[in-house]
């Protein structure tokens, strides 16, 4: 047979249309937004209940309570014990999960579409009528404390927690671990959780998103039946300011003698999700460290073999979440890896991305967008984000076009504004004796050594 012409990449066919799925929006009288996204590929449904009850508004003394309350919801309701609740959900094959982050508490549910009525009813019962039985709270708190302890012994988690502390000024919520501390969580009992739920689990500012093989009218009626009597607003909350601990670059080593690798985090306060010209910033960070073919990964992994992989990203939140470079490198090359990474960042900010790099990142981001909307869960998560960050309804409808419109100049400006290699807090979790001398020799800033 005649051979295929392999010498150049084949031409793409004509671009096929893609539109963000239609969102049917409504609002209950009590303030709860109800967004329904009909998707009829498979007989499944996903529901997200977003509650404006995140960790970011809490004081240091109460750090961890939003996470603990969310986790303790499975302990039972006024009508059902925890075991009965689990049995009721699993009998209909429903997966229910409570995720608590900086910005919100999100209860997610996924099930076969013909089970949505029952499953959503159980979700409502759980959130509106939590019982927080003493024994279940104690048990959940024990698990929570064990998780905190576990993080302190996992080099990656330890590095991330330490980096947050080095990036943000004392008192900034983002500077502490999401789970809180052994001290803040130790005394949280049934009463504190009941108080928290009473005040924070309120519909105002939150929303219900249902995506899947469903009818919008039916879902609205269902939601009105379950959540119609749920009223009120959570305490007024401002977003964290995200003040930096320091504007001077410095290196902090957390000593783990005998480590075979160093966990590296290099960062500073980044930008909030609602930052102006968000798409330019997304393109700018993608070129530096957001893809396999990014500058950082091609240097540290594909050129030098220092690491299995390196990424840089901004953790977008209501306030300025951290910009950070994340990687783990062979102990022996730690200083060289830090030097290469800082060098890449400095060059990047000085010269900006090339036209070609910006075009690649644009194509990647515009193309990958529909690919990440394949499942009802992915679609529901995107719609839920609009509630969490208070973004305009048409955010996703125009996303691809705004990405495509990012110019080299806009990406360069975004990079220079939001990536500041001179202000990096560089956190290294590894064998101090092995890495400190060379790190000091780099002349990138003062080097401090701590024990975990």
């Amino acid at each position, binding site marked *: 047979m005649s051979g295929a012409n392999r010498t150049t990449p084949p031409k*793409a066919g004509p671009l096929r249309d893609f539109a963000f799925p239609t969102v049917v929006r409504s609002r209950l009288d009590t303030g709860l937004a109800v967004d329904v996204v009909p998707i009829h590929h*498979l007989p499944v449904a996903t529901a997200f209940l977003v509650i404006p009850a995140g960790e970011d508004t809490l004081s240091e003394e109460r750090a961890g309570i939003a996470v603990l309350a969310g986790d303790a919801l499975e302990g039972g309701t006024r009508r059902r014990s925890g075991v009965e609740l689990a049995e009721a959900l699993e009998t209909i094959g*429903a997966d229910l999960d409570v995720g608590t982050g900086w910005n919100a508490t999100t209860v997610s549910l*996924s099930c076969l579409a013909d089970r949505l009525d029952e499953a959503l009813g159980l979700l409502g019962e759980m959130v509106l009528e939590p019982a927080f039985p003493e024994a279940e709270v104690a*048990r959940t708190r024990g698990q929570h404390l064990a998780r905190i*302890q576990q993080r302190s012994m996992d080099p990656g988690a330890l590095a991330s927690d330490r980096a947050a502390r080095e990036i943000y000024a004392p008192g900034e919520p983002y500077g502490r671990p999401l789970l809180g501390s052994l001290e803040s969580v130790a005394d949280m009992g049934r009463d504190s959780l009941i108080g928290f739920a009473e005040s924070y689990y309120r519909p105002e500012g939150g929303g219900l998103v249902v995506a899947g093989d469903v009818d919008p009218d039916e879902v609205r009626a269902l939601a009105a039946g379950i959540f119609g009597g749920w009223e009120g607003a959570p305490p007024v909350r401002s977003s964290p300011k995200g003040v930096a601990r320091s504007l001077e670059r410095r290196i902090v080593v957390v000593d783990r003698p005998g480590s075979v*690798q160093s966990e590296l985090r290099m960062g500073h306060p980044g930008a909030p999700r609602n930052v102006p010209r968000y798409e330019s910033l997304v393109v700018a960070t993608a070129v530096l460290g957001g893809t*396999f073919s990014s500058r950082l990964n091609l240097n540290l992994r594909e*050129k030098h073999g220092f690491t299995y992989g390196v990424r840089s990203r901004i953790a977008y939140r209501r306030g300025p979440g951290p910009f950070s470079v994340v990687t783990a490198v062979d102990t022996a090359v730690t200083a060289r890896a830090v030097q290469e990474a800082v060098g890449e960042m400095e060059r990047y900010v000085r010269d900006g991305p090339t036209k070609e790099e910006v075009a690649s990142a644009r194509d990647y981001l515009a193309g990958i967008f529909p690919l990440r909307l394949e*499942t009802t869960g992915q679609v529901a998560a995107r719609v839920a984000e609009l509630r969490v960050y208070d973004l305009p309804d048409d955010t996703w409808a125009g996303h691809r076009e705004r990405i495509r419109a990012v110019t080299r100049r806009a990406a360069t400006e975004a990079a220079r504004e939001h990536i500041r290699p001179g202000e990096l807090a560089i956190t290294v979790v590894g064998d101090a004796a092995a890495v400190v001398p060379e790190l000091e020799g780099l002349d990138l800033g003062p080097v401090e050594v701590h024990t975990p």
Partner: protein
Amino acid sequence: MSRIDFTFHRHTLENGLRVVVAPDASRPVVAVNLWYGVGSRNERRGRTGFAHLFEHMMFQGSAHVPKNQHFELVERAGGSLNASTWFDRTNYFETLPSHHLDLALWLESDRMGWMVQAMTQEKLDNQRDVVKNEKRERYDNRPYGDWQERLQRMVWPEDHPYRHTVIGSMEDLDAATLEDVADFFNTFYVPNNAVLTVAGDVDPDDALRRVEHWFGEIHRGAAVPELPGDTAASIPMSAPVVDEVEADVPLPRVMMGFRIPAYTDPGFAALEVAGSVLGAGRASRLYRNLVRTGVARDAFSYPFPLVSGASILLVGVTGFPESDPGELAEAVRHQLRGLVQVEESEVARGLALEEARLVRALEGLGERADRISMSTMLFDRPERITEELEDLRAVSLADVHDAADRFLATENHATLLYRPNEATA
């Protein structure tokens, strides 16, 4: 209500490549997925970890594709891609906007046909370093990171192809040569040892034509050699194996492995259901009786879908700082013994969970394509991606009791205990 209704178009090229096209025009996306019938089980002594290292080399370019272009071109097209190596297989996959189908087929066919020409010592040394850092990051520098290595050695007899880990050993990675790369490629990366699935927004005839165009001229290889070592392991194990390690871990943990029939064995479904009753969901036995009661911090259980002679069911339970690992293990064994008497309602819940999870797993084209490749390679039936559910539904209460009685409630276990060492406790 939507229905689960997939169509499959099958074709085998003259060179032996099995092709499945599964059209779905619901969005402008296509998934390309290749399964090669080679994994860590095929590694010879002294070359553990090689199948995975080789997988990395597959991204280092081929005759017409320069180093790093594979990732760059797919990302530029707005696609995602990766590969993974496991015991029985290695898979390579791209999900892209559907008008870029040819790009994925060109890239995959070029490395299936013309990979070795592009290999250099420099590339091998570079990826060896990358893989060694992967091993450090994911296994060596992580609490409990050595559990697989330890447990596999306990579950499988000397000489069994599942006795060593996919990541392999540093010494063996160091020993790998360019000649090994070429040998491995010529032996295992042949069209007659692969399944190619194209799922998504494509016309089946057009897609098959394109597959033929890109893959048709690749030469058929020799039959793949028998597995090294000896896959004959008695199921169940004849005696339990217990090992306790003191390590830098935050909490005591028990990991148990049970030798069970292979994924392709008709008896496997009952063990899936038993595993579900034991450890899937918060109404499961382990969660209800150990986690909810405060004995354990977390617990899970599931069977691996291994196919070479036998497989393994895994149970993991983490305690609290004050737990004694031995007592924790005894508590787990007590739950296992209880599996010989479960309620119909527990089986029904296990099934309901499995059913919902299976349907959800088919939502994304990438996962769907991967399951199609697996079902075709292992069962010669792409339809099995949904028929699997029928196998599960056919499991009776008596089947679960029988499976528990034979494989889980007995001496058929390897038990690995982690005790936090003095300094860290």
